[in-house]
């Protein structure tokens, strides 16, 4: 790096900055406010949970139901991860529901009709999912057809192919280990207890790891002279996270233990979270969504990035299809109907921008959980599917409206 000292930075010249005393206090306030703004989505989730906990007379947070929430909505969350990445890059994928159905059917052929081992069936299915993604990515990235069109076509193509593969029949009775990815539990490794020690152990390790990582990041920032949030606020947040994770784990531990789906999800969130926040590939995705031309002129291989995003989406759609099929123990023609809409809603409720460039994995997961709690809560209350649809639509609209309002208030223009 060349040394470019032209003249010492004159802080008072920086547009007349506020004086230091006022500064301390206002930065503290700004931190808290901006955190509330950023975490508005978490607050929304808490609200939704509280409301349904009351409306369902406490059924929502019973251990069994907490566990079900994860298992029943695992597929939306998996899809939401891929979808938010696609949306950040400024694209969309309407085909994920059909692809999930298609892969479910294909895996049925492998695991049931052909009797291949469960693990081989899963690997082959995931590979085919990636190939499907590559097919769509090719048209979008290299031919330049808008993703909306390509995946709309894909929605029809793969729904059709799913029917062809199934030949107008359902495929059922999958091998047990295959089924475990949808409804298996990791439990009782250390004997039978009222509160599963394995689950609690994993939770404690996770909490400790989270705290260590947060402290390290904070120290690193400080050592580089970056502003960090006030200590009290920082500690408070850590304590809050620890309590929520602890309670959640306790609920699982008193039921059947850790759902396999949750393990899959945790691994995905960890990996993709890192990719989006820290990796070069993730940076490229945000750069493309923020300004495609500037990204291109910065030497980013925008087409390749787009291509791999769709390969990844195909892979995740396949995984969602497998989890869903495994849970139902059935590959049917109607599988995956409307999944794309739930995944897209999850991403937008989670704060992704329609214009691209903005969105996070964490946001999409919380968005997906909100949808999950709505689905689950309304089902417990015995509300019909027609009203469930209407309510979910309304929540999507309100969530995005709130986001828009928030940005306008904080940003000026």
């Amino acid at each position, binding site marked *: *790096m*060349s*040394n*470019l*000292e*032209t*003249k*010492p*930075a*004159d802080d*008072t*010249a*920086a*547009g*007349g*900055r*506020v004086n230091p005393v006022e500064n301390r206090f*206002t930065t503290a306030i*700004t931190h808290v406010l901006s955190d509330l703004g950023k975490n508005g989505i978490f607050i929304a989730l808490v609200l939704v949970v509280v409301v349904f906990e009351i409306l369902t007379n406490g059924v929502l947070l019973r251990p069994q139901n907490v566990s079900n929430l994860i298992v029943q909505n695992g597929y939306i969350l998996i899809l939401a991860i891929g979808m938010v990445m696609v949306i950040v890059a400024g694209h969309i994928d309407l085909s994920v529901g059909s692809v999930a159905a298609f892969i479910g059917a294909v895996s049925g052929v492998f695991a049931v009709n052909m009797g291949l081992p469960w693990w081989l069936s899963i690997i082959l299915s995931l590979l085919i999912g990636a190939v499907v993604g590559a097919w769509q990515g090719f048209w979008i990235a290299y031919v330049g057809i808008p993703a909306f069109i390509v995946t709309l076509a894909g929605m029809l193509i793969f729904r059709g192919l799913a029917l062809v593969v199934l030949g107008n029949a359902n495929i059922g009775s999958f091998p047990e280990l295959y089924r475990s990815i949808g409804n298996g539990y990791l439990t009782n490794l250390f004997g039978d207890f009222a509160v599963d020690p394995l689950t609690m152990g994993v939770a404690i390790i996770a909490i400790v790891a989270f705290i260590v990582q947060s402290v390290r990041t904070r120290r*690193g*920032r400080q*050592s*580089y*002279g*970056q*502003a960090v949030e006030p200590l009290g606020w920082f500690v408070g947040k850590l304590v809050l996270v620890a309590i929520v994770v602890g309670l959640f784990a306790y609920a699982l531990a008193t039921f059947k233990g850790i759902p396999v789906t949750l393990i899959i999800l945790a691994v995905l969130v960890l990996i993709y979270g*890192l990719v989006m926040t*820290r*990796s*070069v*590939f993730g*940076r*490229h995705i*945000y*750069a493309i969504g*923020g*300004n495609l*031309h*500037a*990204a*291109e*002129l*910065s*030497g*980013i*291989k925008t087409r390749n990035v787009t291509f791999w995003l769709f390969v990844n989406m195909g892979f995740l759609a396949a995984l969602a299809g497998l989890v869903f099929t495994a849970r139902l123990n059935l590959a049917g023609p109607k599988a995956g109907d409307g999944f794309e809409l739930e995944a897209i809603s999850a991403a937008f409720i989670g704060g992704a*921008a329609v214009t691209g*460039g*903005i969105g996070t994995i964490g946001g999409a997961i919380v968005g997906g959980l909100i949808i999950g709690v709505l689905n689950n809560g309304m089902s417990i209350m015995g509300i019909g599917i027609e009203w469930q649809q209407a309510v979910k639509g309304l929540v999507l609209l309100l969530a995005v409206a709130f986001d828009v309002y928030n940005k306008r208030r*904080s*940003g*000026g*223009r």
Partner: protein
Amino acid sequence: MTTNILEMRSITKTFPGVKALQNVTLDVGRGEVHAICGENGAGKSTLMKVLSGVYPFGTYEGDIVFENETMEFRDIRDSEAKGIVIIHQELALSPFLSIAENIFLNNEITGAFGLIDWNKTNIEASKLLARVGLRENPTTKVRELGVGKQQLVEIAKALSKRVKLLILDEPTAALNDEDSDHLLDLILSLKAQNITSIIISHKLNEIKKISDTVTVIRDGKAIETIAKIDVTEDRIIKDMVGRDLEHRYPDHTPHIGDEILRVENWTAYHPQDPTRVMVDNVNINVKRGEIVGIAGLMGAGRTEFAMSLFGRSYGTKISGSVFKNGKEIKTRTVSEAIDNGLAYATEDRKFYGLNLIEDIKRNISMASLKKLERGGFVDDNEEFKVAEGYRKSMNIKAPSVLAKVGKLSGGNQQKVVLSKWIYSDPDVLILDEPTRGIDVGAKYEIYTIINRLAAEGKGVIVISSELPELIGICDRIYALAEGRITGEVPIAEATPETLIKYMTMEKERA
């Protein structure tokens, strides 16, 4: 000019962490041309946004008195209803609509059943175009017009709203001399029709030429208001930067070494119309430590040449060869060009240069993530440190490098673009209009940076529409006309007259 049409009293405007305006008072006389000068980020655009209701009543402190009435604008429509029209630094026309449609956008001429009366729309548009001196068909799409003509369409649009006070934010920043002159004449002719204008500009010569009064703003405060007879460029500069600036261009003793870049027979065609040659057999070279200028009129193919060279970012059917240090290199993709030590800082920062929704830090690192990469991951802390370094050395006015680039003033955005490419540490740096929209003080800083890059042994190519700037900083200047190099002028022989002669040289007809 005894009565004031506008009085802004004690205006204060705060953004989170920044006091953009502090107690600014501005009096504008009826029928005058009032110029506002100030460094980048001084608060000029913000003051005008307060005046025009972009920042509504209640988001600032102080009073706006227009035609002796206190105004409380809720949005731009309110201010337009009173006859205040602002033309922003970034033009706001809709490219796919026609001139007439743009002029009457949101102000449509309707006939029976509320349907648009197209005949009347086009006739009225023609009349307005005649008033601003633009000879174009009102049904032409705005996209097909150059910036200069788009600017005139903006003014026609303002006239259609019965404007009394016209605000122009850096109207000539993107114009060539001819278009600028036309625009300035137009402002004077509007003045004769009793339309008051406020003009923001960094070009002091034109301010001196047309304005009756000049107000200088520094760091969010009004420094002084100068009447026409007292206006000198030196006085404005002194008010702007708070000290005397003895020279406009820093001293530069060239240490010119071996040839670092040579481009041979470079040709490129128009991307939509592959029969139209845009860059025609261009041959140029740059030596180590040399600052080479490219002069040319708007549309001469300067940007087209630079962008086609930089990873074929412009044009089709590109041919020619590039040599670095005597060895042929390929620049077929942008990343290949960057890897081979080229950098191109664009003239159009919003469209090609910046990710406006990201922060300063991520924009500076965008072209050089490789340098910050540790096993596939970006070293955030290192990135912060690097960006902070540039914020200080380039004097980017922002509370921190975590500020979103979209919220910086125009000139500070330009400094972010430059930082981004300097950080990529190229051997040859192509700067396309590097000082567009930049104040005199910052220009001096940028020239100093260019000199330093040259002193480090890099080759620098500067494309600019301002001839004094090229003559002030370059060691050698090429002139480009209709896509061809028409002249190569050593700095000792460079005068505006010789350059213009080459720049306007037409192709000899066979």
